Structure formats: structure tokens, C-alpha cells
């Protein structure tokens, strides 16, 4: 889904996903929140996980500190 561009900036959909994950929402709710199909959320989680922006825990996916910083960076650019 290209969550992160060549400059290391996150896309708008990635930002929305990371915000939804701040409170540990299940992926099905992240799909509702972002308006994206669940298959795209699952695909994005692999990308966000590989970039260190989110991490899968026993309770589900959560935004990491790096992810929080990326959200702040995206807000600053907006």
C-alpha cells in the first residue's frame, strides 16, 4: 500500500491506521475507522511492522514510539 514514501514520510492512510492503533483497536475496527477494506489493513500492517511503526503484541497491533513520532511528523507537514 506504500505506507512510507522514499523520504520516510508516512502516507495519509498509514497515519490514519497508526492513529487508530494508538488505542489498540482491532484491525476490523481500524478498517471501519479508515474506510479501507480489511485486506488492505492487513497488508499495511506488514509494511508498518517492517518499518518499526507498529508492533504486534499478544493483545494485537499497537503503534510504536517511532509510529507516534511519524504521526507527529505528518501533522507538522500538514
Amino acid at each position, binding site marked *: *500500500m*506504500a505506507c512510507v514514501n522514499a523520504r520516510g514520510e508516512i502516507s495519509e492512510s498509514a497515519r490514519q491506521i497508526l492513529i487508530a492503533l494508538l488505542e489498540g483497536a482491532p484491525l476490523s475496527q481500524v478498517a471501519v475507522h479508515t474506510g479501507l*477494506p*480489511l*485486506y*488492505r489493513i*492487513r*497488508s*499495511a500492517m*506488514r*509494511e508498518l511492522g517492517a518499518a518499526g511503526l507498529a508492533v504486534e503484541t499478544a493483545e494485537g497491533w499497537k503503534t510504536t514510539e517511532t509510529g507516534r513520532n511519524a504521526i507527529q511528523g505528518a501533522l507538522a507537514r500538514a
Partner: protein
Amino acid sequence: MATDVAMATEVLIANHSLPRLGQPAPVFEAETTHGMLRLDDFRGSWLVLFSHPADFTPVCTTEFIAFAELAPELKKRGVELCGLSIDSTFSHIAWVRNIERNFGVKIPFPVIADLNKEVATLYGMLMPGESKTATSRCLFVIDPNGILRAMIYYPLSTGRNTQEVLRLIDALQATDKHGIATPANWKPGDKVIVPPPATTDDAEARMQAGYETKDWYFSKKAV
């Protein structure tokens, strides 16, 4: 060396059997217009995976428009769409943008760029008698548990009827929901077939069961 690889690929395609109904659909991970996707990403949803021969061809363009127009109805039924051809992601992107510009139709579903024919081979989408380089018009209905439930194969020359795809989905979902079968040309709202009894006692009981019964093996009911 390249010739060896090409020959080996041809042998693989020729010898690879079609997937089987009722068995898990072949697993894949593929580059698509929506990023890297795995079959498992669709779990919990129905999936219509379909191939087309090539981008920027007229019959395929009419099919993509028809599938895009069908997408909202499929969405209501919990069905996702995914296209495939042996073209690059860049070609797919250019084509779907071209369709939107020329026909005013946005393609909402991902399209697999199967340049190495990996997914096409797994699903038996290549028919060497028709073409060695283009996938035939194949369509697979995969249920939320990843089981292959239906397959439709059309030749290169013939565009598919998307209303039949919708009817097929409705029939499969009615079967799962009510434990019934559907007769020829069934559509939602029509009576369905009650599975035939398996014992003489059940056959006797069936005659008194209150269904629309022609004979012990042929009963219909409304659902």
C-alpha cells in the same frame, strides 16, 4: 539458460492441474495495484479472484467496467474482488487510470501483476491451447475460510456475465445459510431444493413434511 527456464515454465503450466472445488484455495503472495497482498489477507471475506488476458484490450476493458459496477452489490454480500493478468503493476495502473479517464469508471479492486505467472500457474489460469502468454478468463470464488467454492472458465474471446457471478455468490451464500441446494436458473426469492432424503424412513417422512414435493427425492421450499 533463459530458454531452459522458459521450457521448464511451459512444462509446469502444461502439467499443473486445476485447483479443486472444496479444497483450500492455493496460497499466494503477489504484487498488486494495492501493494503486496496475500490470499490470507482476505480471510473472513468472500473473494472473487479473476484473471483477464491483458491490459488495454477491449473485451477486458468491458469486463473491468462491469466488475467495477458490480462491486457495490458484492460489497453488500461481504465479497471482495481481485483481478490478475500477466502484466506489470505499471501497466495495470496506466490501464485503470485510462478506464477512469475514458469511461468514467473507477476500478476499486486490486489487480495482481503476475509477471512470473506464479499465481496463474497455481490456479490453472493458463490454457496453452489458447495462449502461452495470456491468462484465460478464469474466475474463482473463495469463501471466508479460504475454501475454493466455484470456478468459471471462459475463453479469450468471450466476456463474462457478471450477473451470473452475482447469482452464483447468492446461491453459495443461500446454501451455507440454509443448508439447501439451488435449482437451475435459481435467483434470490425463488424456492430452493431440499436435499434428498438418505434413508427409506426419511423418504417416507419427506412425503408428509409439508414441502412442495413432486416425489420423495424432489422437494422445494421457500427460504
